């Protein structure tokens, strides 16, 4: 019994890592645009178009790598259109994002029929899935059950989780990362220093497309090798929810994605226990909504009442303020 529950736990963790991966990839992609000051609601569409073209590419090239490259390329095209409209034409980012999502849905279904002659989904037909990476020695060192925690995933799982620390370094220690932050936080500063806001936003948008493309490729070539209509099913929007309350910080993004990944994995498990599938499928969305509401409730503006203590402190700050002119002055 104990062993059984242990197995169950490890299996659930493994499932969590798998389900977290696509949403983590797409949310990390969105982190670039979020940091650059663009509210990118078009992640969903970029993911979807990449998933479709990854399948097409893998059939045509006969390799999963080829599929991934072509999928990413499709996402980059979408990211470029998004950047042209939002950055250069200064169109409303929500409108453009939603329109691109709808476009992705329409194009994938149309092409599905034109290329494969079917509606709904495409399975088999020579789709090559991503290989599983076995870490040598993991099984011997950790034993079979623990080893699956770190070994046997597709390469993109490792890419997703390794990207988190890399992004932290990117934002803090590289020039492009720093500029992306500056452009998002204080565009006037960037402009005054001759940093091109437009090009930085293009760069952020394309980096976002790259990651969203990988996320899409992982969806259709990862653990299931197929494409279905609207298979991204709102993951892009969940990523946007995560980005809203994380501000694009890689660690917070990771935390949020793990929460949703767990909700996803857990709901699939619930299904096997006979819960109605429709309700179970709604769990991740509900979790996203509740998290969104709870975190904005936490950040709510609070009504302040002065107490004897705060009054005393305010007045004493003032006194020392006279001596130490470095104390912050109130500003409007």
């Amino acid at each position: 019994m104990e062993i059984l529950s242990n197995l169950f736990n490890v299996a659930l963790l493994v499932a969590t890592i798998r389900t977290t991966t696509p949403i983590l990839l797409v949310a990390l992609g969105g982190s670039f645009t979020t940091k650059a000051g663009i509210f990118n609601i078009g992640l969903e569409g970029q993911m979807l178009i990449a998933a479709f073209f990854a399948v097409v590419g893998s059939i045509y090239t006969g390799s999963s790598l080829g599929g991934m490259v072509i999928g990413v390329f499709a996402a980059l095209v979408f990211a470029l259109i998004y950047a042209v409209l939002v950055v250069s034409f200064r169109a409303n980012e929500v409108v453009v994002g939603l329109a691109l999502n709808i476009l992705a849905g329409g194009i994938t279904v149309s092409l599905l029929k034109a290329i494969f002659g079917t509606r709904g989904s495409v399975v088999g037909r020579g789709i090559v899935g991503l290989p599983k990476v076995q870490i040598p020695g993991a099984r011997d060192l950790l034993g079979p059950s623990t080893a699956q925690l770190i070994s046997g995933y597709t390469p993109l799982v490792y890419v997703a989780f390794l990207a988190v620390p890399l992004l932290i370094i990117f934002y803090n220690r590289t020039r492009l990362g720093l500029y992306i932050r500056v452009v998002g936080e204080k565009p006037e500063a960037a402009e005054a220093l001759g940093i091109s806001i437009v090009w930085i936003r293009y760069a952020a948008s394309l980096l976002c497309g790259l990651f969203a493309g990988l996320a899409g490729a992982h969806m259709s070539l990862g653990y299931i090798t197929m494409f279905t209509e609207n298979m991204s099913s709102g993951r892009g929007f969940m990523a946007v929810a995560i980005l809203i309350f994380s501000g694009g910080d890689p660690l917070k993004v990771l935390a949020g994605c793990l929460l949703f990944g767990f909700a996803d994995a857990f709901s699939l498990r619930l299904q096997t226990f006979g819960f109605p599938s429709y309700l179970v499928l709604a769990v991740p969305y509900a979790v996203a909504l509740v998290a969104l509401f709870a975190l904005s409730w936490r950040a709510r503006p609070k009504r302040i009442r002065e107490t004897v203590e705060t009054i005393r402190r305010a007045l004493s700050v003032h006194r020392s303020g006279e001596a130490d002119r470095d104390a912050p002055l109130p500003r409007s």
Partner: protein
Amino acid sequence: MSAVHGSQLYFNRRHERAPRIQPEVRRRLSTYVSSLSCVNHRLSSPASVCFMDFAVDLTGITKRFGAFTANDSINLTVRRGEIHAIIGENGAGKTTLMNILFGLLQPDAGSIAIGGKTMLIDSPAVAIAEGLGMVHQHFKLVPSLTVADNIFLGMEIRKNGLIDRAAQVERTRFLSEKFGLRVDPQERVAGLSVGIEQRIEILKVLARNARTIILDEPTAVLTPQESHDLFQTLRGFVDDGMTVIFISHHLEEVMAVSDTVTVLRDGRVVATKAKSALTKRELVRLMVGRDISFDRRPRTRNDGAVALNVTDLWARDDRWLPALKSVSLTVSSGEIVGIAGVAGNGQTELAEVLAGLRPASNGSVQLHGHDILDRTPAEIRNRGLAHVPGDRMVRGVDRDATLSANMLMGRQKKKPFARHGVIDWAAVHEAMRALIQRYDIRARGPKDPARSLSGGNIQKVVLAREFTAGGDVLLIDQPTRGVDIGAQEAIHDEIMRQRADGRAILLISTQLDELKALADRILVMFDGRIMGSVDGAEMDEDAIGLMMAGINPADMTEAT
């Protein structure tokens, strides 16, 4: 004495580097920091001007925006090693000229020579390479980055492709010490005071090896004390052989700090003169083109009842820091009470709390004896408070809407503009047409969008709406900011007329001469508190200056 010991420290430090300031002057300075006009004679010791070459030489610079000529064949010569002030009213073309010099704008005609070399400056990068540095009026610092990161933004020190944080901190510390601009390189910029932010901006320019520093309205957000320190720093730069170009519309500080003054009016150079050859009155005449004086408006005493009564009012700003600290004041009918102070000392918050736009954290506000604290803006309006907001473009109007739609705000449910919830647009247009006449608003008609009007005319629209709103207490925040002189007089006339009609007026202004002309009593705000009250008729500018810097004049007398 304790009140000013911060500046004492400063002078000691400066002294190590620049022993030219006489100890006796230093003593007097440190005890008498308030009025810049008094300080200036002592500060501007003869500069070591080198007449050999020009730092900047502009010839025939012309810049048009559509039909409007912002700069009209401007010639400007700045000698190396001087503080050259460029002064003019808002809209005289100062900022356009500096943006051209710095490569942010391209002139339609004319040439620029730097250090005697004629060249094309087509981007700020070129200007920076030529040793120019610009400190913008609105600081361009990134709050989440550290001081050092901000200074080296755009010219990061890198090692192995990664930014070398330690080296940047080291270099910042070096610059900070070399130029006597005290900062902590590893602190985040968010939450630093304006004075320190300006120091960082100046360090940013120095780190790029600037030899000529342009400052655009540098003192607009500083306390008199901070301005004073800034002038000391600038003087030090000039002593080191650097050149300073200083843009301002503030007479006092121009007289206090500059060697040479160039006056711009309507996009043209009116005069370039040595400061010593100028008087304030002359400068005003050059700037405005005629003799104007904000003489105190004649008035009769009104003994009205108290209309607005504020007691022990506390409030927090947007960052939840205390912005109002135990503010108490009263305004009677037929009286103008002025609020003086450097922008950002709680005036905006005070206006917002009174108008119901910001929650108070303590205290009480009574309008004709009715408690109006925590009431909605609509309820407060209905109780008789009209409000001319300080930020008129955001709060005061919808720029995309028509003048009529702007005028309707606040009375969209009231007769004769609406009946049973249905708006009578014909009546609204008619009323707006009358206001355009009455307030001399330069517009073609009530259906013009607000954005097609000039700043002064938009302000008149706001005043017209608020003065006809039926309130008998007027809360007027910065009535003439960004408004040309002609319109200013008209607005002042109107405010005096409202006083004569027996309205109670609370007038917030950062312009002392405006308060001097209009207010019966002047209260000075500093750091969220009312420092003291001065009678408008016998206004003591020195006392106000001290209070604006947070020093109680009574303390000063005790100390000396």
